[in-house]
């Protein structure tokens, strides 16, 4: 096996470890919603939830780097080896920061600022190392690099002064939205074009539409913080364009495998439909801060994850039958956890926001849906375990 592919597998292996840790911490977070929590005060929700966010983001970023290495035509291997060591060290520091409760209080961007900066530097170095080879300068590679650069640099923006609470909050929301609506969509478009060269013909047209829509939908995150008619109007246009953009992308050509098909469909549902609906100002004023937002972000992250698992599988050439089992279990977990969260969000919106029943009273009504959500997360954890087992077992052979 070429050293470049070995390096890619190294990153995919790290991604799987992070995903297993994420699955465990996400389960611990979710269990706190159903009231059976012996760690209620010993391990408060905000700590474990922040830890799971950080692990998920780190896992996805690691996977995206692995994809770049797997699909690159050439690579500067000595430099990339050092960068891989640096990335491993960063992941160890990230884990330590989470385990010792040293994460920052920035929702969804909880990594400490110093680690944010190191992470951004390492990612930019990886991009530069890969792009330094002329053979790696195809359009999908540039899109992959752009998406990864957005993921790396965007979290640095809210660190800039001034520390005005409203501005900080708006910037944080905007950054998270740009990562989920713009960066993940661009990366997915690039990876799909790589996997299915015939679909690359309209790549830039689709990516342009996805990027423009992603920006408009991201502006909807400002609706409750500091919106004016201008940004509300943009969000509305984005909401109208989003289904169109994702349908155009889906119709661009055949897709490679089940994991990629699932990823595309999940992207259509998350960003193309649910995200678009939640961006409509007349809707978002009622739904902002409900479980519907969580459902959207989770579904988008799982869509990106599905894509990464597909590439990892292809790189590993792993046993198809066992991977098929992991796929169906993953699908079941994705559907159950997403549907439970969407249903919980709808019920919460109706009871808490429209009927103005108190938050805590509303949560009692949501208990059955939270139980389904936890079961869905449990199934997802099983799927990742199955996938990881298959991945590691084949590597020993």
């Amino acid at each position, binding site marked *: 096996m070429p050293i470049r592919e070995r390096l890619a597998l190294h990153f995919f292996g790290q991604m799987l470890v992070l995903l297993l840790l994420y699955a465990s911490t996400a389960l611990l977070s979710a269990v*706190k*919603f159903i009231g059976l929590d012996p760690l*209620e*005060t010993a391990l*408060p*929700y*905000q*700590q474990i*939830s*922040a830890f799971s966010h950080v692990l998920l983001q780190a896992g996805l970023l690691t996977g995206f780097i692995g994809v770049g290495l797997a699909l690159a035509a050439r690579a500067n291997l000595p430099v990339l080896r050092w960068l891989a060591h640096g990335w491993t060290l960063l992941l160890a520091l990230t884990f330590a920061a989470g385990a010792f409760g040293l*994460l920052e*209080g*920035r*929702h969804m961007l*909880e990594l400490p600022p110093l680690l944010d900066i190191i992470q951004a530097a390492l990612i930019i170095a990886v991009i530069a190392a890969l792009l330094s080879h002329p053979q790696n300068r195809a359009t999908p590679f540039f899109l992959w690099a752009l998406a990864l650069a957005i993921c790396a640099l965007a979290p640095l923006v809210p660190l800039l002064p001034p520390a*005005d*609470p*409203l*501005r900080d*909050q*708006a910037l944080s*929301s*905007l950054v998270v939205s740009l990562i989920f609506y713009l960066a993940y969509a661009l990366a997915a478009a690039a990876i799909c074009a790589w996997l299915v060269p015939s679909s690359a013909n*309209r790549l*830039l*047209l689709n*990516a*342009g*539409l996805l*990027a*423009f829509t992603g*920006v*408009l939908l991201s*502006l909807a995150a*400002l609706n*409750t*913080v*500091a*919106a*004016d008619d*201008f*940004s509300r109007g*943009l969000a509305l246009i984005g909401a109208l364009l989003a289904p169109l953009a994702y349908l155009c992308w889906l119709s661009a050509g055949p897709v490679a495998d089940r994991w990629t098909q699932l990823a595309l469909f999940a992207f259509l549902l998350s960003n193309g439909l649910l995200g678009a609906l939640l961006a409509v100002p007349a809707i978002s*004023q*009622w739904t*902002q*801060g*409900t*479980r519907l*937002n*969580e459902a959207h972000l989770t579904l988008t992250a799982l869509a990106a994850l599905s894509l990464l698992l597909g590439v990892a599988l292809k790189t590993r050439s792993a046993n198809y039958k066992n991977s098929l089992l992991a796929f169906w279990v993953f699908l079941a977990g994705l559907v159950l956890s997403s549907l439970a969260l969407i249903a919980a969000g709808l019920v919460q919106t109706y009871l*808490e*926001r429209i*009927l*103005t*029943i*108190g*938050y*805590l009273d509303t*949560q009692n009504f949501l208990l059955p849906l939270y139980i389904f959500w936890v079961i869905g997360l449990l199934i997802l954890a099983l799927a990742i375990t199955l996938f990881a087992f298959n991945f590691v077992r084949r590597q020993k052979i």
Partner: protein
Amino acid sequence: MIARVFFAVCLLSGALLVGAALGRAFTAADLPPDAASGYAIWLNNSCAGCHTLYGQGGAYAPDLTHIYTQRGPDYLREFLANPAAFHPDQRAMPRFGLSQNETDQLLAFLAWINTQPAATNWPPRPIFVSGGGTAQSAPVADNGDPTANSPVERGRALFSRAPAICSTCHSLEPDVIIVGPSLYGIADRASERVPGVSPEEYLRVSVLDPSAFVVPGFNDVMQKNFADTLTSENVSDLIAFLMTLEANDANP
């Protein structure tokens, strides 16, 4: 070539729109020093990991955009000192062990959040911590300002609507304690509570000066600013409603 130009235009226009939206959406906010310190406490304790402000943040605990006016500083001070004591059967908020000064600074931050222009536009209807409206009280006007109907109906609406929102702390079910005592049958009890004081007067004083008549077995934690936040008509309406809550017909 056309595709490249299209992509570049999309990307560039997207970047310009973000810049334009941010430029229009913000003005430099006047953040008092106390509120700035409170914001640091908010960040250091990862409050946004569980709570939302303007619907942004974690969704594990209630939105706090309007909590300062809904609960009042006295109640919030008591609450922050020992959160788990207030909702024993619900999710427990950790005890952060804030000093008196830190608590005041955090409250200054929450008060500041509540006064920002965005807070006047969001949410469309109040978000309560507990209690709040019910399906039965939904017919009240969307703005929560019940101006039609009789005093009893207006009082009933105020019971679960801003600016009074008595239902946040008081239940109408017998023996159900949220924070304060249940008001089931209060019309009967009010006449017996303080000799020489009429039930209407007892209720009026209890709303406007809660420390005057603290019910035995309860702490003096009721919000103290109703004299400022309620009009005299509001208080009269509430009393008219409370006087209908007899033991055999508590919620007519």
